[in-house]
């Protein structure tokens, strides 16, 4: 249910990006939602990765934009958590890397910053939901 809701919102976010990209500065809604969900619970990769693939195809006509980096996040997190212990720094670095990979694709700094801010907020609220559920 949560997966479907997040994917539907990500789809709507992608449509917002397409519709109003030239009229206002806006974050990459879909990527922020999907990254926030992935970082809140890395087991979400199973539905987050197809969502990111759809995001890349819809906005950039290529699956090579964010997907390779986002696909690497769960195994890298497992490795780093084993080595360093579960923590925020590695998650924050991976989040920023996944977002700033959009810079060469013509996204402005303000838009990327908005995406990072939105993603951290979604990550915080989603993580809280998982803690309550547990």
């Amino acid at each position, binding site marked *: 249910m949560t997966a479907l809701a997040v994917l539907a919102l990500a789809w709507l976010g992608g449509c917002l990006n*397409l519709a109003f990209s030239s009229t206002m500065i806006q974050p990459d809604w879909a990527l922020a939602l999907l990254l926030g969900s992935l970082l809140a619970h890395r087991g979400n990769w199973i539905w987050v990765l197809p969502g990111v693939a759809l995001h890349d*195809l819809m906005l950039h006509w290529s699956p090579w934009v964010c997907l390779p980096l986002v696909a690497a996040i769960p195994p890298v997190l497992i490795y780093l958590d084993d080595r360093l212990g579960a923590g925020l720094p590695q998650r924050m670095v991976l989040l920023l890397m996944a977002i700033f990979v959009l810079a060469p694709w013509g996204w402005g700094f303000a838009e990327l910053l908005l995406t990072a801010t939105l993603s951290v907020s979604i990550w915080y609220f989603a993580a809280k939901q998982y803690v309550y559920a547990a």
Partner: protein
Amino acid sequence: MMQSRSRSWLVAAIILGVLFFVASRAPLGSWTMLAASPALDALYAPVRWWQSFSLWFIDSQTLQARFEVVQQRSQQQAALIQEAGSLREENRQLRKILDISDIPGYRWHAAKVLGRSPDMMSQRILLQVKGVDTDDVIVSSEGLVGLVDSQMGAHATVRTIFDASVAVPVTIPGSTLAALLRGQGDQLIVSFVPLENAPKQGKVLYTSGAGGLFPPGIAVAEITAVRSVPGQLFAEVDAAPIAHWQRDNWLVVASHEKHDTP
């Protein structure tokens, strides 16, 4: 536990591999953008409602002023259409005298911009338009924009001239230049410009009509830099597009007129 985890990663890797293979073979991006078109229509609906609603609160003096501006523009356009008609007739007669075969005709119609890719240069565009085909030419009021990539129902996706897959034969009117303009993401490069024939910075390139895909005489790009490379026959030429489609709400489609072959 470890075995099931590695199995799920293997499944994910296979899915990704299949996705990359399919994406490289089929225009998945274009289809995804087209699939979003009903949602974009719905997103624009409140904007349209607001525009219709706000018309009720415009006073008659403003409406009168707007009407006069539109009337003035309409008169100017009527004069231009008349001039274009006489030039077309003159062109037809000259072609007849010089025995030059006519280029294939184009049908021009307006298209509303429904969406754009969010990159700064808006490399992909979604149009609301009926009766277009793949490879129909898209033009703005300033110059060439790109080509129709695919269409579905009343919607079509456009690859702009920034796309590396679009190559435009260009020339400078009155010169012997026959070059090829190609997109490279966020800039344009002009190939096959002979060093001795290299145009100066600021010159405007127009479609030459070679190949028959693009109608001749449409402004495409302005030359921004010309560099000579030692030992090379051709100059390295950079250009910037003439059209600024990032903010245009309406574009024009030049559809190739279909000629029935006997």
